[in-house]
C-alpha cells in the first residue's frame, strides 16, 4: 500500500516538527499557498514500518549475489558509510570557510592524488556528480581544447557501436555530432573503419577498455596513434576500470581524458540509482580545462580552487563541490585496500569472471568471444536456448530471481543476440559462483522440461512479471488524492 494511501486527516509524527511555530504574518496573502499539499499524514511507526518493509522487497549486494554486467556490484564496506557519515563531515556547510574544512579537504586532495596515480593521468577533478556528468565534462574539455587552439572544425566524436549509451548522449550534450564505429568479429574495434572515419572534423574518440564486450581492446596503441595523428583526442570511459586497476593505466595507453565511476570501481553504494561520483582525469594539455572546484594544497593548507583560480575551466557542474559524501567513501575504500589491494581488485575480478565463464561453458552455455580472455565480465548468448526451447535471455533473468540471484544485464551490449552480460566482481566467493552455475543449469533443465515455468517467472517475488508496455501506454506516474487504485503488493 502506498504511504499516501495510509494517510488519515490529522495524524502526524508529532515530534518531528517544531512544536510551537509562530504564525506567519509577513508574507502577503497573494503569495501564500491556500490548500495544503497532499503529503501523507501518518505516524512515525507507520513510516518506519512502511519503509522497512519496502526495503525488504529489494535485492541488493547486502542480501544477494548481484552479477549485473557493467555495474560492478561489489561489496560496499560498511566502514565507508559510517566514516563518511561522521557528524563533523555531515554538519559542514558547503560554503563554510576553508578554516573549517581542512580535515575534509585533506581527504579530497589525497583522493585526487590516488586517482592520478592509479589511472596514470596528470591531474584530476572530483567535481562530476556521476559517470555521465564525468563524460560530459570530459567531452566538454575536448571541445574547450580545440576551441582554445582555434580549431573550430572538429565537430565530430567517434563512438564504437558497443559503447554505453551515455557516450553518444554525453557527446551530444556537449554539442558534438556522433559517428558510430563498428566492432570486428573478434570484439576489437574495426580499424579500417576507424581509419576511414578520422579526419580534420574529428574532435576525439570515446572508448571503454576493456569494452562492454568484456574483452581488452588489443589495438589500443594503434587507435591512439591514429586518432592523435588526425588531431583528435582520446576519451576513456572508466565504467570498466575495475578490470585493469594496477595492471594497465589509461594514461599509459594514450588517453587524454578519462572519467572514473567511483560507485563502481571504488565501491561506493549504488543506492537504488545513485548517488554516483564521476571524477575526471586529464593529460597535461587538458589540465586548464578541468571542471571546478578542485582541491589545491599550498604550504600544507588546503583550499578550493574555483573559477577565479582556473579561468579556462569548462566551469561548474553542480552548485557546490559535487557528491562529497561519495568521494569520502571512495577515499576510505582506497585507504582500506591500499596500493596492493587496488591491483588485487582487477586480478580477482578477472579471475572470478574467467572462472565463471569457464564453468558456464562446461555446463553447456555459449559464451560470446570464447577465444578471448574475459576481462572482469563476459557475455553469454542464449540464442540457442531461445531458438530451441523458446525461452529467452529475459526468461532466464527473471527465473534467476526466484533462485535468489539478481539477474545479469540483459540485451546489452546490443551486438550479441539474447545476451546476458555477467560481472561477478572480486568480492564474491567461489561458492557463490558455483551456486550461480548450478542455478543456471537448473533453469535450463526447467526450460527443457517445463518452459512455461521459466516464461512465467518470477514466481516467488512480491510481484510477478510486470507489464512494461502497459506502464508506458497507461502512464501512471503519481498518486493523487482520491486515486481509486489500490496497491496491495506490499502486504501479504
Amino acid at each position, binding site marked *: 500500500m502506498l504511504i499516501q494511501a495510509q494517510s488519515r486527516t490529522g495524524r502526524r509524527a508529532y515530534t518531528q*516538527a517544531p512544536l510551537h511555530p509562530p504564525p506567519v504574518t509577513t508574507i502577503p496573502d497573494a503569495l501564500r499557498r491556500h490548500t495544503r499539499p497532499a503529503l501523507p499524514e501518518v505516524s512515525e511507526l507507520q513510516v518506519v514500518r512502511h519503509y522497512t518493509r519496502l526495503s525488504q522487497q529489494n535485492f541488493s549486494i547486502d542480501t544477494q549475489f548481484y552479477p549485473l554486467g557493467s555495474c560492478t556490484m561489489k561489496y560496499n564496506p560498511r566502514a565507508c558509510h559510517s566514516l563518511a557519515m561522521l557528524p563533523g563531515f555531515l554538519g559542514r556547510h558547503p560554503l563554510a570557510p576553508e578554516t573549517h*574544512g581542512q580535515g575534509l579537504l585533506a581527504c579530497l586532495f589525497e583522493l585526487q592524488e590516488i586517482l592520478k596515480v592509479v589511472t596514470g593521468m596528470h591531474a584530476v577533478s572530483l567535481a562530476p556528480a556521476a559517470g555521465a556528468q564525468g*563524460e560530459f565534462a570530459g567531452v566538454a574539455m575536448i571541445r574547450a581544447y580545440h576551441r582554445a587552439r582555434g580549431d573550430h572544425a572538429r565537430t565530430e566524436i567517434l563512438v564504437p557501436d558497443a559503447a554505453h549509451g551515455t557516450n553518444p*548522449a554525453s557527446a*551530444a550534450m556537449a554539442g558534438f555530432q556522433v559517428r558510430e564505429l563498428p566492432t570486428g568479429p573478434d570484439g576489437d574495434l574495426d580499424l579500417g573503419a576507424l581509419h576511414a572515419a578520422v579526419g580534420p572534423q574529428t574532435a576525439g574518440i570515446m572508448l571503454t577498455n576493456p569494452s562492454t564486450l568484456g574483452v581488452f581492446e588489443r589495438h589500443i596503441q594503434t587507435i591512439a596513434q591514429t586518432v592523435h595523428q588526425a588531431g583528435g583526442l582520446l576519451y576513456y570511459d572508466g565504467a570498466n576500470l575495475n578490470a585493469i586497476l594496477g*595492471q594497465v593505466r589509461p594514461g599509459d595507453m594514450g588517453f587524454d581524458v578519462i572519467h572514473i565511476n567511483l560507485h563502481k570501481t571504488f565501491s561506493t553504494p549504488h543506492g537504488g540509482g545513485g548517488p554516483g561520483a564521476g571524477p575526471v582525469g586529464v593529460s597535461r594539455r587538458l589540465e586548464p580545462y578541468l571542471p571546478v572546484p578542485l582541491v589545491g594544497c599550498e604550504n600544507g593548507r588546503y583550499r578550493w580552487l574555483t573559477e577565479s583560480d582556473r579561468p579556462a575551466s569548462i566551469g561548474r557542474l553542480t552548485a557546490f563541490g559535487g557528491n562529497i559524501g561519495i568521494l569520502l567513501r571512495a577515499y576510505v575504500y582506497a*585507504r582500506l585496500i591500499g596500493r596492493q589491494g587496488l591491483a588485487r581488485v582487477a586480478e580477482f575480478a578477472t579471475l572470478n569472471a574467467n572462472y565463471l565463464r569457464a564453468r558456464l561453458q562446461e555446463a553447456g552455455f555459449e559464451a560470446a568471444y570464447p577465444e578471448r580472455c574475459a576481462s572482469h565480465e563476459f557475455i553469454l548468448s542464449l540464442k540457442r536456448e531461445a531458438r530451441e526451447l523458446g525461452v529467452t535471455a529475459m526468461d532466464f533473468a527473471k527465473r534467476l530471481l526466484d533462485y535468489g540471484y539478481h539477474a545479469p544485464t540483459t540485451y546489452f551490449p546490443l551486438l550479441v543476440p539474447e545476451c546476458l552480460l555477467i560481472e561477478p566482481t572480486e*568480492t564474491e*566467493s567461489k561458492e557463490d559462483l558455483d551456486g550461480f552455475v548450478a542455478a543456471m543449469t537448473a533453469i535450463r533443465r526447467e526450460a527443457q522440461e517445463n518452459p512455461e515455468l521459466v516464461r512465467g517467472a518470477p514466481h516467488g517475488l512480491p510481484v510477478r512479471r510486470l507489464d512494461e508496455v502497459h506502464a508506458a501506454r497507461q502512464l501512471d506516474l503519481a498518486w493523487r488524492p482520491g486515486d481509486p487504485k489500490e496497491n496491495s503488493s506490499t502486504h501479504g
Partner: protein
Amino acid sequence: MPFIPHTPDDIAAMLATLGVDSIAALFDEIPPELRVGAQALDAIPEARSEMEITRLMQSRARADGEPLCFIGAGAYDHHIPSAVWQIASRGEFYSAYTPYQAEASQGTLQVLYEFQSMMTALTGLDVSNASLYDGASALAEAVLMAVRANRQTKSRRILVPRALHPAYRRVLHTLVAPQGLELVEVGFDPRGGHTPVERLEAALGEEACAAVVIAQPNFFGILESVDELTDWAHAHQALAIAVVNPVALALLTPPGDWGAKGADLACGEAQPLGMPLASGGPYAGFLCCKQEYVRQLPGRIVGRTLDLDGRPGFTLTLQAREQHIRRGKATSNICTNQGLLVTAATIHLALLGAEGLERVAASCHANTQRLGELLCAISGVEPVFERPVFHELALRLPAPTASVLNALAAEDILGGFDLDPDYPELEPALLVCATERRTEDELRHYAQRLAAHLERSPAAS
C-alpha cells in the same frame, strides 16, 4: 586480502579450471609494454586496518569543528529525523542498483513513485522525475527541456534573473552553452530586490525567448511576484521555469498555480528534505512538469503498472527517452541519479507531512525575521531590500563583509554568505539565514559578536 574472499585453495582450484598457472596469465591480451609493475602504484599508501582509518577519519571530521551556521545560500541546516537515515542506510536500499529488474526492486521503485507523488503535490504540477544530480544541474536540464518542449518558438534564448543563485547561473552556463543556448541576464530592482516584469521586457528587447527562469524565493530570500512573471512568460510564448525551495512550498503558492496557467516546469534542490549539509553533497535535484511535456522530461521515471496476475507493481517507464535506448538522441545523458537521497527525502516528507513541513517553514521564517531584528538593531546594519523574504535576508554592513565574516569564523560563527564578489553593486552586503534549528540564544550570540566586531572595525566606504 581486504574484501577478497579467495583462499589459497580457491585460487588453485579456479586456476586449474581455467588451465592456467597464474592470475597474471589472464591479462595476456594486454600489450606487455603497457603492463605496469607493482611499483607504478607506490605513491598510494599501503592498506590500513579499519581501526586505523577510523581513527584518521574521526580526527579529520573533528578538525573541521562544529561552527554555528548562519549560511544558507542554497544549502540549509534543517533537523533530520533519526529515522530517515537509519532506514535509508539499510543495506537493501544502500547497496541496490538502479531498479532495472523491477520484480526484484519493488522497494526502491515504490519509494521513487511515492517521491514523484510528493513532488507533484508540493509543486502542483502533474509529473515528476525520480531526481537529478542537484538543484543547479536540474535547472540546466529544465532549460534544455524547455527549449525542446517549446513548440511556439525556435528561440534558444533563456531569460535568467540576476537574482538567481550565482552558482546556479554558472552551472547553467557550463551545461547549456555547448548546445548553443543564449542566457540573457535580467536585472533586479535595487530597492525591492525582486525581478520586475519591466526588467524582463528590457532584457528581451525585440527578440523571442524559449523560457523564463523564475526563482521563488530568489537568491536574496526575496519573494517574487510569480503570478505576473509567469503570465508575462506565457504572453511571450515562453515557458515558465520555476526554481523553488521545497520547504518554502509549504507556505507559498505552488508553481502549478502561478499566474493564469501555472508554471510549466518546476525544479530545485531537494537538500532541505532530509539531506545533511555534508559539505555540498550528495544532494538531489528535482524536476516536475505539466503532463504535456512528459516525453521531454530527462531522468528516470517510475510508473505504476500491473503484473501477470493483474496485481499492481512499479517499474521504470518511458525509457525510450533515455540514453541507453536513444543514445545520442536521448533527452539527457543522465542515468545514475540520486536514488538514495530520494529515499531519504521520501521518508523525511512522510514523517513531516504537510503540516510538519509548514511548521518547519514557519519556524525558519520566524527565526530569520528575528535575526534580522537583532542584527538591524546594530548601528550601521540594515536590510538591503524592502520586500518580504522567506528565510534569508540580505543585510548591508558598515564594514567590509569578508573581514567581518573572518572575524566571526575565528569564533566558530559562520556569519552568512558574502554577497560582495557576486554582487559588487550591493557591497558591503551579507546574506544571512536562520533555520528552525537556530535558537534564540544562538541568534543573540551572533548579534552580540557581530556588534562587538563592528565596533572594532573601521567603517566601510
